[in-house]
């Protein structure tokens, strides 16, 4: 018992000693921060990205990050700034959204660069929900040899409800062309009233299912999808569509979009299995 307590204490100290907040100025006046969980050097660093408008504190990613660190992986948990200085809270749907997919991709690139600058030559990108889409968008536009693998959990496209995506895109493009800076309120992902600049909204709306599937198929690295068959956020037939492009995918039975409850462990287990398998494959 005493030995167990000692190990636990050492473990806590070890975690505390290997966790730090990292901050970078993404744009002028817009600093962003990330939690850097230091693991074993021998293992790849994991960049774990939260979902739509969330932060690194979101339970799904926070739990997963702790689990990965416990498993010896260095984990960087950034919080996308969404053009908010030092954002620390989930951003409300109705807030002024002045960010775009491009801004998000740029920030992901900054964090990948930060990892690399800190000696991590083997990086695995792990995303949850919309974060999986943003990582996919990053990988599709910024192929990087240091990125060794990609795990997308609960991967979804930029959902816009029942509105015609093409009409919306056309409307947004027209506004942008007309330099109308009026905020646009549109259903996006789980937000019913997503308020954004036309450019920002357009950058997300463009990522529909076909583009996503295309990006998946064209991934320059190993990929793994972990999807819950009880995910209510997913569009009908989305899982089949994913299976159709033959991207490795693990279906967590009963898992919801957030992989909460007992499915947190499923998510962690499948992530670790993929990482171990990927690490073993790399070693061979």
């Amino acid at each position, binding site marked *: 018992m005493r030995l167990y307590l000692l190990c636990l204490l050492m473990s806590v100290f070890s975690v505390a000693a290997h966790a730090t907040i990292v901050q970078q100025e993404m744009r002028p*006046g*817009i*600093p962003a921060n990330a939690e850097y969980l230091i693991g074993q050097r021998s293992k790849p660093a994991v960049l774990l990205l939260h979902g739509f408008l969330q932060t690194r504190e979101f339970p799904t990613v926070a739990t997963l990050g702790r689990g990965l660190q416990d498993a010896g992986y260095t984990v960087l948990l950034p919080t996308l700034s969404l*053009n*908010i*200085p*030092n*954002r*620390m*809270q989930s*951003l*409300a749907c*109705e*807030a*002024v959204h*002045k960010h775009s997919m491009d801004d998000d991709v740029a920030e992901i690139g900054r964090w990948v660069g930060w990892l690399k600058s800190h000696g991590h030559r083997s990086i695995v990108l792990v995303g949850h929900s919309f974060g999986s889409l943003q990582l996919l968008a990053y990988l599709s536009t910024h192929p990087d040899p240091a990125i060794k693998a990609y795990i997308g959990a609960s991967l979804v496209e930029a959902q816009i409800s029942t509105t015609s995506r093409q009409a919306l895109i056309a409307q947004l493009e027209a506004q942008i062309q007309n330099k109308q*800076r009026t*905020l646009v309120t549109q259903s996006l992902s789980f937000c019913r009233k997503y*308020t954004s600049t036309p450019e920002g909204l357009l950058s997300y709306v463009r990522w529909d299912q076909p583009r996503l599937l295309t990006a998946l198929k064209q991934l320059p690295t190993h990929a793994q999808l972990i999807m819950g068959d009880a995910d209510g956020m997913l569009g009908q037939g989305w899982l089949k569509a994913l299976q159709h492009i033959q991207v490795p995918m693990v279906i967590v039975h009963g898992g919801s979009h957030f992989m909460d409850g007992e499915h947190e462990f499923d998510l962690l287990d499948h992530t670790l299995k993929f990482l171990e398998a990927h690490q073993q494959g790399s070693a061979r």
Partner: protein
Amino acid sequence: MKWPDAISIKQIALAFITGLLVLMSLIGGFAAYQTREVTRSLEQHNQNAAASELTSAIQRLLRQTDDQAANLAGWDETRQQLVLPEYYSYWRDQRVYESGMLPSHFVRVALYTPAGLLLAPSPAKNSLPARLPADISPPSSWLVDEAGTTVLYHAFPVYIDERHQTLLGYGMIRLDFMPSLLQQEALHFADKASVRLTLKPGEKLPASQLLSRLAFHALPDPDRLRFQSILSRTLLALFVLLMAMSLLGFVVYNRLLVRPLRRLSQDIDAMQHGRFSPHFSRSQAMRISELENVRRSLYEYQLQLRELHGSLEHQNREFHSQARQDALTGCHNRRAYEEDWEKFRIELKNAPQGVAFLLFDCDRFKTINDTYGHAKGDRVLSIIADALVMALRANDRLYRLGGDEFATFLSRTTPAQAKQIAQRCQSLLDASVFSDLGINEPVGISIGIAFCAADQLEHINDLPKQADIAMYTAKQPGRTRIALYGEDTERASQTLVASRETSALFQALASPGMIEMHYQSIHALPGRKVDYYEALARIRYRNDLIMPDAFLPVVSSRRLEAGFDLAVLNQVDADLSSQQLPPGIGVSINLSAQSISHPEIVSQLLELSRHNARHPLMLEITETSLITQMAEVRTYLDLLRTVNYRIAMDDFGTGYSPLRYLVDLPVDVVKFDISLVNKLGEDNRASQVVADFARMMSDAGYSLVAEGVETDTILHKVESLGIAHVQGYLLSRPMPLAEVAARFDDQNAGVNCAV
């Protein structure tokens, strides 16, 4: 302070109830006072609670504002606006409210650059300062007055990092202070309408000083008001109940206690005044057992008392009657006389009328009494009273004043009627039979009448005295025994029983020397030589000489014969002792027949007899009075004769039983009364009778003295009849001893001169 003698039970009840009401009023007042104190305390507590809750509300509001400011300062979107203010107005006017950062549009927020400049102009209606006030150091709160609206500002810094190392700008919250303060549901004690905060124009009041400037009133506490209302109603109800109970108690008390007690008291008062309630036994039974017992006891006591009272009344009537009735005669006594006379005099003042006062006196009653005994004397008085009562009018009352003296007063009468009644009295008495009692002497009464006319009632008080005078006038020898004051007492009124003479007599009896003896010579016949002197008494009173006919009636009426005779004997003794009379000259002394039986008189006579050797002494027994104790008088006279007194029968021919006296008493000398002597001057049968009687007396061996000889004719007649001595104004008038002595001295001087 003077306490009332007694207070009634009703007053006690009233006092008790009044006291009870006063006590309850005091208690009520005390309760009301305590209630007011409690109310005041509650009000104070309310005020304190209002102050406390206002303080809490203000602190809550400030804390809430602080919290809002903190939330805003830590809000990502706030920082976003300070960096990318493109959509600041959306954030300011919509976003902060939709997100719940600010509760309502009463609260406004604005962001300022680190330099304190407003990020973007505010709408006119919600204008916030374009610059942060230079004199504040956020975080800070203050209040200002803006066009009559009290506004609370709270400025706060916004940092880019959690460590507050990099200032990103400022935020400022503006809210309408009063609505924000008063809309709090926690205000239960403070009157929201009364909350005031007065700020001077341009004044900036730090929030820390807010409480001291806030004016307010506490809300009236409904519980306190209800408590007051309930207590007031309770006190009022209690007071009304107490009043009703007091009234009811008073009524019950009055019916159960006061009325019965008053009835008992009235019955007792009635009993005390001798008014016995005839309905006492039928009076209603009392509900209080003790009072009922008292009532019954009182009833029984009243019965006994009524019987006793009846008995006492009967006895009282008897006593009253006895007290006013003469036991012997059955007529009214002196007390009744005095009461009736007083009452009658008072009545006369209202009904003036002629009044006659009749005084009756039995003639020679003492003699009758002494002669025949008291029993017969009493019987005589009874017969006299019966006769007088019969003679009086129906409504006239007869009073026995004492002894043999009776009186009556006649109302509505005249002098003639009074005399008529008096005559009727005498007639009835004369018709009365006394022989059955063995009394052979005539029994008569003398009646004195005094009359007062209706217009002279101021002299009513003099009637008894006037009747007394008239009565003694009536007693004078030769009178008809009825005398009316004023008619029959002209002379007597000046002499008889006048207070002056009476006073003189009594003084003379008490003071030796006031009786002065005058001596009238008695001459021997023939030759008319002075043989002896008759000592005649006078009273010297204030240089006046009161004659015997003025005071002797008083002596007789007052039964002063013995005392007067004793004084006379003393004065004669003194005169003889002075030896102013020549030796051999005798002295005769008048003596009342009643005095002979007095031992003191006899003793004095024996003492006086020592002068017999120088002056032969003779006692003249007056014959006008009745000698009742004949044997005793004879014994004394015999005794006196042994010491050489000669006994003379005075006024012979005017009194009672002269022959019997001559027979029974040792008489040496008989003095013919002037009425007999005057007969000798007439040439008729009476003169012959008197002359024959004188010769017969002389033949029987009596020495005769003719009194009252005032003419030579009578003197010659007397001499012719062989009467031994003569006395009268013709020969000599009575004169003082000094004159007698002087005359003898003159005679001696003449003899000596002749010699």
